[in-house]
């Protein structure tokens, strides 16, 4: 059976690429500290010696649209082109190209449906910065095949937070039952408190530092009970109008397991959002 070599949860900040590659007067004052934190975080994936990456993210109205919106979708393709014109325009993100692992995609789709998730699929998926940002931060060589999994954290009506956790648990079980000798890293990105297109956007720190502090604690300690008790589709509007992306962190808590402490925890308070980085090594705790 396959091995879950690492479980990694992270924010995905589209400004990282530009901040980390800029020089001279264009380089923002926070860039060096950010790069140092990312390079340390990258080591946590390198150390896991993964062969395949399952990558959980969310399309930001790029390929998926309101006339046909899936809640959970698995990419099943041999290759993925990546990043879109408006991400190039706003964030300076490069066009990218990544191999896919169709066998694992097919396995997750078939077994996922049989486990109670009627997953949508795509045989031609262009992935966006929710998946390319963690590639840039964690595996800039983009030499490993991926299985992209998209969740809808964006276009209400959304699935309930508990459903994200449940999907995470299911992904973990399915990867562990995949008849393969490969080492799989499961990586997912979301947000802490975040406001976009609202009055609290782009402030001196994230819109709700208290939520961020609690959320980092829940994730670091695997405290799904508190997270599920305090978080609802309604409550997530309060910390910021884009905070439903936290449900992808909850999905990753489901992957990591209840009350399983993260082996690596780091965060960085940026000017309008808190960055947070977590890695678990299931083999060590097995």
């Amino acid at each position, binding site marked *: 059976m396959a091995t879950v070599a690492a479980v990694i949860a992270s924010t995905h900040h589209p400004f990282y690429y530009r901040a980390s590659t800029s020089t001279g007067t264009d380089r923002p004052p926070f860039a060096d500290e950010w790069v140092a934190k990312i390079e340390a975080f990258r080591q946590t994936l390198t150390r896991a010696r993964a062969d395949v990456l399952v990558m959980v993210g969310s399309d*930001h109205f790029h390929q998926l*649209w309101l006339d046909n919106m899936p809640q959970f979708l698995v990419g099943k393709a041999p290759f993925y082109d990546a990043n879109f014109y*408006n991400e190039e325009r706003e964030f300076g993100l490069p066009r990218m190209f990544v191999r896919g692992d169709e066998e694992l995609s097919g396995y997750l789709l078939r077994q996922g449906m049989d486990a109670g998730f009627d997953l949508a699929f795509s045989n031609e998926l262009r992935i966006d910065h929710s998946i390319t940002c963690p590639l840039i931060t964690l595996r800039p060589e983009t030499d490993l095949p991926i299985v992209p999994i998209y969740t809808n954290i964006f276009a209400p009506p959304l699935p309930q937070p508990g459903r994200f956790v449940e999907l995470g648990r299911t992904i973990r079980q399915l990867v562990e039952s995949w008849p393969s000798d490969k080492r799989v890293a499961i990586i997912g990105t979301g947000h802490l408190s975040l406001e*976009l*297109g609202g*009055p609290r956007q782009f402030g001196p720190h994230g819109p709700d530092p208290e939520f961020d502090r609690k959320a980092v604690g829940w994730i670091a300690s695997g405290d799904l009970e508190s997270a599920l008790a305090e978080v609802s589709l309604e409550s997530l*509007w309060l910390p910021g109008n884009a905070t439903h992306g936290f449900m992808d962190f909850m999905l990753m808590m489901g992957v990591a397991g209840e009350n399983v402490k993260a082996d690596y925890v780091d965060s960085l308070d940026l000017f309008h959002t808190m960055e947070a980085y977590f890695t678990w090594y299931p083999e060590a705790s097995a």
Partner: protein
Amino acid sequence: MSKYLLNKFLYTVDRDPELVERYRADPRGTVAWWEADRANLILNCPAGERSTWLTFTDAEREALAAHDYVKLFELGAHNFLTLTLFIAMFERDYDEPLGFQREYARKLSHFSLPYPDIST
């Protein structure tokens, strides 16, 4: 209320570099053309199989024609779509990094929770 159509306008303009410039330069003309020619195209269907029923309300049409992102927020247009397109059009007019984004926030500062519903 046709929040879906507002979002469709923002989405289809945002993904097309020529339309972004056209909407910046001639908002009223672009909105009129788009509503007449594009509003009913189903994005994954041939043009002959277009919808027949989608129109803006007067308030929606005027908000788009006036580049009035505060009104779009009030009408429940998707916050991410409005922000992304308006950054593309107007960030260039500000000297400070994030200058436009901060002004955008200030202009919305009279809104308190709960914000207008963006569900479609």
